[in-house]
């Protein structure tokens, strides 16, 4: 599983970065979304992988890392996901506004000369 997750994160990051280097605003937003998936998963992964050990304290189970997944990266990622949405929203309206004002969705707001 570790290798699956690691390679998945790598692929998400690679495609995300590739898209961020494109010349159109919407593509950059798509790339950033993929990159934030990768980053969120990466932060989450620093807590290591565990299956069936959700950090919900159950009576009679000693509250330690051997019985529960690491809750701290989860808490960090939870807010990161929501903030990621907020950031995506801001970028999208900037893209919309840029297109409305400049008539092009090129990232530098000017069409390259042919």
């Amino acid at each position, binding site marked *: *599983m*570790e290798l699956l997750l690691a390679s998945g994160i790598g*692929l998400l990051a690679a495609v995300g970065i590739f898209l961020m280097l494109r010349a*159109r605003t919407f593509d950059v937003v798509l790339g950033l979304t993929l990159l934030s998936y990768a980053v969120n998963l990466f932060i989450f992964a620093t807590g290591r992988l565990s299956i069936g050990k959700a950090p919900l304290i159950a009576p009679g189970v000693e509250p330690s890392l051997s019985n*529960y997944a690491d809750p701290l990266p989860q808490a960090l990622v939870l807010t990161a996901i929501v903030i990621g949405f907020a950031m995506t929203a801001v970028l999208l309206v900037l893209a919309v506004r840029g297109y409305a004002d400049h008539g092009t969705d090129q990232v530098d707001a000017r069409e390259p000369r042919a």
Partner: protein
Amino acid sequence: MTLALIVILPFVAGAVLLATANAARLLSATIALLFTIAAGALLALQIPAVASGAVLAAGWDWLPLPGARFGFRLDGLAAMFAGMVLVLGALIIMYARYYLSARDPIARFYAFFMLFMGSMLGVVLADNLILLAVFWELTSLSSFLLIGYWQYRSDARQGARLALTITGLGGLALLGGVLIIGHIVGDYSLDSVLAAGDQIRASSLYLPALILVLLGVFTKSAQFPFHFWLPHAMAAPTPVSAYLHSATMVKAGVFLLARLYPALSGTEAWFFIVSGAGLLTLLIGAYTAVFQHDLKGLLAYSTISHLGLITLLFGLNSPMAAVAGIFHILNHATFKASLFMAAGIIDHESGSRDMRKLNGLWRLMPMTAVLAIVASAAMAGVPLLNGFLSKELFFGETLAFEGHRALEFGVPLLATLAAAFSVTYSMRFIHDVFWNGEPQGLPRQPHDPPKWMLVPVAVLVCLCLLVGILPNTTIEPILQFSAGAVLGGPPPEFTIKIWHGINWPLAMSVAAMVAGAIFYLLLQRLFSLHDIVHLPRGGKELFDALINRSLAMARSLTGRLQSGHLQHSLAIIFLIATVAAALPLAPGLSYGHTPLTPVSLPAVILWAVGCVATLSIAFLYARRLVALVAIGVVGLIVSLAFAVFSAPDLALTQLLVEVVTVILMLLALYYLPFESPPERNSPPRWRDAMLAGLIGTGITAITYAILTRPTASIADYFLQKSLPEGFGTNVVNVILVDFRALDTLGEVTVVAIAALIVAGVLRMIVPRVVPEQPEAGTYAPVSLFLEFIARVLLPLAILVSLYMFLRGHNEPGGGFIAGLVIAVALLVPYLASGAKTVEARLPLNYEAILGAGLIIAALTGAGSMLFGHPILTSSYWSPELPVLGKIPFATAMLFDLGVYLTVLGGVMLALVRLGKVHAPTREGN
């Protein structure tokens, strides 16, 4: 307390002046004068105690650990200097009232002036070396403001910048030196440092400390080779020059020489550096002054030369020379301030400072002429004036100096030469301005100024005469009591007399007078002094070149990194990040050996689907709708991954965010081209793909390495404390709303700000694509089926959301998730019926919800502070209610309610605003 008040009063005056900036001009001057007099009176009250030999001190701890105290100390030297600063300050305040024109903002002038005066008093009275360095920098800053007072003039701005850079850098060096001294002594208080002279001189760090301190001194006191800022500071209004370059700013440097004399002097290094710089400065300044055509330029170089003289005296390592140095500090302050003010009067009344035009003013402004001539004579060292006395002492000290034969012979000779130059430029000032023919094309017909402009000059000139004629009764007691403080012991026996009989110093004086006069005549008759252009170059040019070069370098580097093309800039950022990440991994990345989690078939299938979806985006991104579907799939897989790896809260959040994100993108896409055009002119795609692939591989390797290494986490703490101290079993939620609630507060604030940005950016937008509008008043559901579902779904969804919220502290859920749930549910009617219909039925103000959420979250946090706990401390309350039984209730839940409302308001605000983009344009039409 009184001591602190002396320093603080001018600062208070500055604030008062700025607050009454629109008051009458006379009022501003009066305020400044009254505060100065008050500080002076406080100082005067302390003088008897100081004169009897006491050292007064008062202060409070400021930064106890590094040993910085906010303390002040008054001894003879400090009292003398503070007196000089205040007396000259008061006179110049009077003078400036008449000097500044009606167009100049006078309150600002006086505010800066008082700020400077306070800083200078702080330097003089500081009891602690660190505090002294702080006030030292404050004098640099406030002098910057004063020199650049006429901010519309480019020479004023450049002069101010030059002065600030040079003296500011010197201040940094001084701070370094002071820290070293404090390190050697173990204490920064002046008493300890002054008593530890032997310890400091014996230390191996003595030389670095000395050099750093002297860098501060030399830059401030305009010693060679840092003297070049001073002539450029002449762009300041003349009252500023009169203050900064006679009594205060430049004297701060020599003050420090005197202050630290017991701690640092007496070594060979001290002698060579201090007296060497002093001698060079004395000569260069005096010689250059002769050739200045600008009145203030002449005075500026003369100031440099006199500062050199004082520095030289302190460098000679003899107690009597130090006394002479202090004497000359006072004398120079009096005659130079009066000369600057006289030059200001001439400039003010005639409209020019050029000595090639200013001639024959004796008949036109006789009062000014008398005062200026006496002051110049004092500067030249004519008998019966104060300048003569200190010059005689100076000559005597150069003769008394014992050392190498060449030095014993050379120092007096060079001193005489410099004195001859000073006679020459003083003669030039007198003869050129007041005689030497008629005025040449002056803008105005000059005449004597208003009485109150002359009074300050007259007071100072009288002082020159008084000290010059009656030294025993006037200046000797002051010198006696300040010299003791400088030397850190009883001062040498001395009396100051006008007539010592015929001796070597007198002979040197006579020689300097004669040589100076002959030199002036020669220059006048043979070379036509007015035609000689002698503009010293070097310092300013070097400085400008340095500044321009570094600016150009910064500009070119920035231009290369941030070309204004996003693709280029991003590629560079990614490249640098890659290098920065790869460098520490260069020796090789080691993997750990923790047992791996077993692979299951469904996991592999999900992984494969995710990979295909991700890769398909890379190839199909130009077809945006398809890419959007694929990104939805990827988000779903990520959410499932969270669910598989024991993170139910994350899985829920990711799922809900994915829904709103896709809807948001879909909305945005409506106003954007549906397809990316084929790329032209951009860097080849394979290069981006290589970079992206490289980074992806690296991230895979690092992630795998982390996953296989054993973990050492602080998580046990959270797991153990969650229930007993956070009152919840869902540790993730407890972390969010309790342990790290302050972070969460910041994060929901970010969400709120982002939503407001969205609303702001979409104001007054004129979209390229205008959506079709249903006629007003007609009812046009987008989809009857969807609308029916929505009606049934909404109440249910609200219930689910509440349930998620209420159980969040113990089970997966909480404010974030519940807020997202209700947002998703609210979106359905929007999609089904359109915004108009929904808002008619369900008038929700999302800005208000957003604001209410933030306020609740912040107030809950502050609430715990009311009970004396740190911010956002949770308390628990479990009321026993009839029927329902025991209801757990932690205040953290109230905080979570704030999160809930903020997330709901923020998400809905962003989505609804984007969905209603057409509205303003129709109003605009």
